């Protein structure tokens, strides 16, 4: 079974984002970019399935600018077999991404697509579910555990209040939550090897998808800042303050 793992290039999670002065968006110039952390978990899970012999090939696909090649290389260095870069400059919405991924999954005859549950830039949490809808496949979102059985996959999901386990008919879509696994670091020999792995280059047009956004971003602003308040001397004093303002 082939597994498709979409990976997105985003601002590194350790970087403090800055809103542009003209309010048109977030400043991406000269900022460290990395693979979306949830996608890294997806790559790791695909590799573990391959190591268990449940999966034959892992294809990492990224939709983004030329720099997204690095993101694909990260996945290849971890253990993915080959990459596809669907080149696109500028914003692209989850629906258009899902349409491109549908075409790729169909062309590659993937049996499973593992995606991050959300990208840490736009925080949409939509692409996996949309892809499942477009393909007519079942979905196991926010996965904490996967087990591949005969013609189905059991997905234990993080839901409000605990965990829920579902059995999905294959082919299926899985989106990863934080605790599914801890991604490995790529070793130096594997990083070198990854340079030789093939990356095919495509465009949205190759798949007949119009990548133009449908929502209009009017502005992007800083959130309201909170000011730090007073230091108190003791827990007893703290309780008195809280009683004073009537919250306890």
């Amino acid at each position, binding site marked *: 079974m082939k597994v498709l793992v979409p990976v997105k290039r985003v601002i590194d999670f350790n970087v403090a984002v800055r809103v542009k002065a003209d309010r048109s968006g977030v400043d991406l110039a000269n900022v460290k970019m990395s693979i979306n952390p949830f996608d890294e978990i997806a790559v790791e899970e695909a590799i573990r399935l391959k190591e268990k012999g449940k999966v034959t090939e892992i294809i990492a696909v990224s939709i983004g600018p030329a720099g997204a090649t690095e993101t694909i290389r990260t996945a290849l260095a971890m253990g993915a077999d080959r990459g596809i870069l669907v080149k696109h400059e500028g914003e692209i919405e989850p629906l258009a991404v899902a349409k491109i991924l549908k075409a790729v999954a169909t062309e590659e005859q993937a049996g499973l697509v593992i995606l991050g549950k959300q990208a840490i830039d736009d925080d949409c*949490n939509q692409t996996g579910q949309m892809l499942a809808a*477009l393909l007519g496949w079942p979905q196991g979102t926010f996965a904490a555990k996967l087990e591949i059985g005969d013609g189905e996959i059991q997905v234990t999901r993080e839901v409000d209040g605990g965990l829920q386990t579902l059995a999905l008919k294959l082919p299926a879509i899985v989106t990863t939550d934080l605790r599914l696994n801890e991604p490995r670091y790529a070793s130096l020999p594997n990083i070198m090897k990854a340079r030789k792995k093939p990356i095919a280059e495509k465009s949205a047009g190759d798949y007949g998808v119009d990548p133009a956004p449908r929502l209009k*971003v009017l502005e992007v602003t800083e959130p309201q800042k909170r000011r730090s308040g007073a230091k108190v001397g003791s827990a007893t004093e703290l309780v008195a303050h809280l009683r004073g303002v009537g919250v306890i």
Partner: protein
Amino acid sequence: MAALVIAEHSNAALDDATAKAVTAAIQISSPVHVLVAGSNCQGAADAAAKLSGVEKILVADDARYAHCLAEPMAELILSLAANYDAILAPATANGKNILPRVAAKLDVPQISEIIEVKSPDVFRRPIYAGNAIQTVEAKGFKKIITVRISAFAPVAMNGNAAVEKIAASADPGLSRFVGENLSRSERPELTSAKIIISGGRGLQSKENFALIERIADRLGAAVGASRAAVDAGFVPNDRQVGQTGKVVAPELYIAVGISGAIQHLAGMKDSKIIVAINKDEGAPIFTIADYGLVADLFEALPEFEKALGV
């Protein structure tokens, strides 16, 4: 046209998240209808009928909706979609799971986790874990929206909506419920609690969380945790407050032994009053706390508990 709100409920009872999503729906379109899909969900339907500002409750009571699986739920919502110009769900695990599936089938974008309705076509939503706020316009197509529940007040429960039973729609039969492991707690839910007391890595062990739990029970508070405390195995993961856990905004948030990583702050910085107890004076949590106490939590918590008792 009209707006449809997908109810969050436990079959027996309605979740407060529904009343908050209704608040957003009223600002977007009218009349507002609420869909209660479940199994033996009369209790939830009766409660939904009291939602103020709602005209009609649609009830689909069938075994196939017992566990809110995305595939049959999306089919049901799609069968109703033509009657509505806006479909909303609270941004709970269920809402986030189901609604994008509906949006894709309708070939429209989804607007995730709105925090404000500026006009019926313009919404504000957080991006980058709340470190920036995006204002988006959605014009010329059906609006599919999830609602961040910590950002909206619930409507009153003094309404009298009509209740209409609707037939179940086809079940694509792609997925099957196997089991669940839900943590039972006498304490309030994190997302609806008025007071939350959360512990971090500073608690050092699972056993030490008892210090927090005792105070929570005195205050009628929910117990939360930082990602570090969850990853260390001190508490189950559904207790996690933060960008990748629950986003909360209670009247009072007490952070104990939590340094205040960006990802945690993103989940609680909209709380009305924030209290931080930490022995490290330089901890970032103090920069957003209304009341800060620099102290060893193992001394401060017993003293806090004692002070409550006087």
